[in-house]
């Protein structure tokens, strides 16, 4: 397009200056916390919950809920952006760094991607550099309360610097892969990486 298009009579809602630099392009700020899921919310019993790392690792590792809660955890305060256009600032989570989890396995040198999979069958693909260096964690609390099933409880992956569909709810495991295996939404036309600051919403963006 030559002349940039302007929507006749649109001026927009002005943001507070201190927030403006924190909201990725095309997004709007919310105070509540919308729920997006493709199907019914799975109910997972804690005594049957396990988190497993498998694939290109020397030996798969698996934690029960009790074991998982004993892992060192941290508080993360991060901004979250969903591809459905909402952004929520300063969400406070408690969880285990993905670094801590990957330290428990010996990675095969070919491992370059992770398929995160969920109870209920959801999957999403991530490159290892997007998960390490304390950029990503598995959360079991939000706002100092246990994560509710609608929001992915008992535990969900959180990758704050990517669109929120990468933050798989009801997390069940990681599979280490040599090649990227596109996940649920990535197969259905969404971007393979999903950086909100680059507006990587759909494949081809």
């Amino acid at each position: 397009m030559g002349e940039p298009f302007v929507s006749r009579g649109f001026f927009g809602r002005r943001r507070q200056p201190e927030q403006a630099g924190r909201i990725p392009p095309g997004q709007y700020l919310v105070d509540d916390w919308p729920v997006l899921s493709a199907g019914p919310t799975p109910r997972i019993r804690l005594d049957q919950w396990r988190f497993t790392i498998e694939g290109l690792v020397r030996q798969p590792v698996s934690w029960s809920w009790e074991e998982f809660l004993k892992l060192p955890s941290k508080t993360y305060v991060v901004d979250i952006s969903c591809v459905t256009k909402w952004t929520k600032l300063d969400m406070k989570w408690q969880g285990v760094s993905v670094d801590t989890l990957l330290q428990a396995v010996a990675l095969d040198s070919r491992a370059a991607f992770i398929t995160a999979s969920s109870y209920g069958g959801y999957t999403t693909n991530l490159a290892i550099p997007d998960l390490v260096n304390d950029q990503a964690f598995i959360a079991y609390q939000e706002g100092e309360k246990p994560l509710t099933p609608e929001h992915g409880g008992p535990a969900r992956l959180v990758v704050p610097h990517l669109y929120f569909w990468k933050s798989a709810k009801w997390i069940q495991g990681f599979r280490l892969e040599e090649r990227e295996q596109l996940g649920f939404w990535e197969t259905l036309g969404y971007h393979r990486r999903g950086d909100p600051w680059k507006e990587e919403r759909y494949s081809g963006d």
Partner: protein
Amino acid sequence: MADALRWQLGTVTEIHQETPRAKTFTIALPLWTAHHAGQHYDIRLTAPDGYQTQRSYSIASEPERQGLVELTVERIDDGEVSPYLHDVVQPKDQIELRGPIGGYFVWDVGLGGPLLLVGGGSGVVPLMAMIRHRVAAGSSIQTRLLYSVRSPDDVLYADELQMLQDHREGVDVIYTYTRQAPGGWTGYRRRIDRAMLKEITSQMEAGLRPYVCGPTLLVEAAANNLVELGIPADRIRTERFGPTGT
């Protein structure tokens, strides 16, 4: 797919007031591609200083209508985009948009049925695209719409749904009014619950395909109850809007 997602300038050809709070915008598209019923478009508004914002709106029209889409938009009073669309946009205005988007909450007659559509409020919009597609395709797939609304004033597409019932097209519409029912109403007047879903699904053929769209609490209740009525979770497709309210 990449082609379908280019931003384009559509032209508003018609604006129809559906209810006191909802309008349908008919938009002619230079780069029209056939959508699947249930998909949406992203609208992008740009202010003179370059500020932009985007929202997604479900397509209400069937893919058989070529060259255009209809988007039904509920006016959110404290919103940023829907008040603009409702109060400022006129026929012949241009709107920047891209789509169709979404590959899971979709239905084509090829997927078969029977089709159970459960909608709350403006959640009926993508379900209406499915119904219109079914009718346009001349399909006889058993179809039921359970439509939860606050009051008769909130019913979208009321005349068209009535006509479908009258013509015995095989599309049943069952309303439940959660705040105020019409005078003399003998049907449901409560939120969707398991007993209601059981009654409605018990008269349907096997192999149900449920699509549930609406506010989060309604979708949670409907989807959970359908699972507990024995419908496999991986057949139930949902689209939620709004927070949990907890």
